[in-house]
């Protein structure tokens, strides 16, 4: 039984390779492919109790995590290059917007889930460090001519400096974390950063640990989004903030058509040319289409127990930042 499980995904991958060479995928899939999947579902018995989407395919829930793992294992090395190529560098602006909306004060603890190569964490540390330096400079300037009261007060209390901020990068995929660690070393960020392997649906942390929880371009890969949201609620401190940066629905019909054309025609080609991996990037654009739209996702976040849930569209709805608070 176990052996047959391993064979069947490979068979499906082969079938997909074959159909992919016939040009852009029909979003509804072709019939031969469907029968293969249903045959798979028939003979896999217990594990195929419920199925979920993997791009435009249906797969059993147990399978999705493994397949997502494989996708990111293969793209890890070229992940950052591909991001720049696919979004024409705009993903950096999106991530900067996320940080600006977060506006973190020094001393906060960030959990960067599905953080992979650590983009958000690096930006977070940079932001809080520059804010902290500003505060220290301001304090030093204010202390230039202290009044006698301030001098007297200064004798008692020590260590009133703003606290250090810390970021924890959590990802299910070791390859992505490895790439992230290398990037951290080249960037020279040594303190305040830790790398943890963990599943977003079952975080290896205690309750009430973090001030901010972010998940950037990761939540659509999670099998059970509600569980991930509940885990986020669990590990956040009271007053903590949940922020999600994710691809979303474009409302403008003209832009939507351009975007679809670009996604389905260009991106897998880029994936093949730059990273040598067509199907992973096919999965990427398909998973974007399967993710719920802004309002639906906002409702899901509210269901999980967050308050004051808001969202902002960036680039006309291509990307949306959702934010909620644990109160």
């Amino acid at each position: 039984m176990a052996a047959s499980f391993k064979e069947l995904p490979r068979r499906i991958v082969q079938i997909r390779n074959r159909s992919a060479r016939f040009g852009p995928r029909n979003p509804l899939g072709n019939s031969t492919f469907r029968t293969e999947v249903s045959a798979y579902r028939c003979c896999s018995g217990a594990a195929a109790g419920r199925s979920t989407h993997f791009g435009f395919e249906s797969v059993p829930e147990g399978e999705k995590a493994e397949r997502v793992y494989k996708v990111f294992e293969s793209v890890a090395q070229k992940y950052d290059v591909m991001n720049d190529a696919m979004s024409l560098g705009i993903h950096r602006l999106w991530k900067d917007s996320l940080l600006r909306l977060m506006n973190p004060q020094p001393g906060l603890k960030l959990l960067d889930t599905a953080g992979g190569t650590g983009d958000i964490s690096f930006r977070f540390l940079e932001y809080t460090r520059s804010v902290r330096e500003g505060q220290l400079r301001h304090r030093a300037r204010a202390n230039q001519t202290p009044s006698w009261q301030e001098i007297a007060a200064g004798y008692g209390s020590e260590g009133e400096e703003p606290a250090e901020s810390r970021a924890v990068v959590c990802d299910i995929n070791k390859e992505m974390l490895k790439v992230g660690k290398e990037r951290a070393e080249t960037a020279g960020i040594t303190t305040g950063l830790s790398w943890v392997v963990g599943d977003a649906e079952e975080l290896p942390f205690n309750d009430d640990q973090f001030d901010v929880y972010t998940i950037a371009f990761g939540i659509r890969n999670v099998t059970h989004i509600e569980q991930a949201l509940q885990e986020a609620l669990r590990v956040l401190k009271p007053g903590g903030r949940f922020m999600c940066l994710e691809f979303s629905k474009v409302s403008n019909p003209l832009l939507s058509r351009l975007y679809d054309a670009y996604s389905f025609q260009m991106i897998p080609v880029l994936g093949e040319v730059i990273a040598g991996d067509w199907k992973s990037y096919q999965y990427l654009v398909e998973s974007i289409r399967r993710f719920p739209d802004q309002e639906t996702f906002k409702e899901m976040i509210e269901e999980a127990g967050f308050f004051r849930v808001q969202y902002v569209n960036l680039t006309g709805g291509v990307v949306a930042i959702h934010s909620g608070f644990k109160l």
Partner: protein
Amino acid sequence: MAALIRSLRAVRSLRGLGSAVVATTCPASLYGGLRRGFHRAALLASDSKSDQTVPPPSHHEHYQAQEPRQGSSTFSTEQASASDPGTQHEDPWPNTSYQDQSGEQAEDYETEDQLQARILTAALEFVPQHGWTVEAIAAGAETLGLSAASAGMFDNGAGDLVLHFVGQCNVQLTEILAEEHNQVQLGQAEKKKTADFLRHAVETRLRMLVPYIDTWPQAMSLLLLPHNIPESLKHLSTLVDDIWYYAGDRSTDMSWYTRRAALTGIYNTTELVMVQDSSPDFEETWVFLDNRIRDVVNMANTAKQVQATGEAVVQGLMGAAVTLKNITGVNQRR
């Protein structure tokens, strides 16, 4: 320590009310409070302050539902989506959801806005240290047991803090004036003359700025930012209106506008003088205030005199003209 005293006071007050259930949960909730701070802290805070010194910011906002705190403890969750998601005001986040506002039946639940008001009130004590900034709000949130990240709830950042403070001061002033009005009605105090009343009201209101006077210029500049001007003008106009109402103004003609315009001018200029005043207890400011009020009163009197004089002059001229016509015989009927 302060929290312990608060809980003791709460327990004592609740014992008087005879609600044993709450009393037993009080000390336990103190330590679980940090985890369920949103709910339990509200319970402690609401019970130790019998008179609501935290003013509902919904005073001027029409879409809030203000439910009474004492109700049955039906477990109403605030997790149901809001029924009015489309409430728009000038926001960088145009798609906000406000949680169920009628879900305030249980004693230990409060709406988001009340929590925000509490955070801002707590943030005020950090203003002398951090100024009117998001850092002060973050520090205030931390005293309530919430993470500093919750300062991100305030889209307008420091502007929210300043507007909250101004609103709070205005409400306090209204309460003081109402109380004095009651005293006068009951005959326990004498009715002041208009000029004295205005002076007293403006001085009381400006004295509320004294703890924050060092950072007040920063607050004034925040109030003048274009996106804050509508709100700050609203606060100013309600302040001036309230003061004139309690001064006894019931006019329905042009003087309604002129009086309020005059008082607005007095208030703003006195505020500016106060900000750069370094005399002990701001004596020079009160002298300036006296002079301005006297000027306005004089202006009013002068205006009346000018009008009367003008009328007299015109009548005199008319009389001279008629006399001249009579002398020259133009008026003769032929």
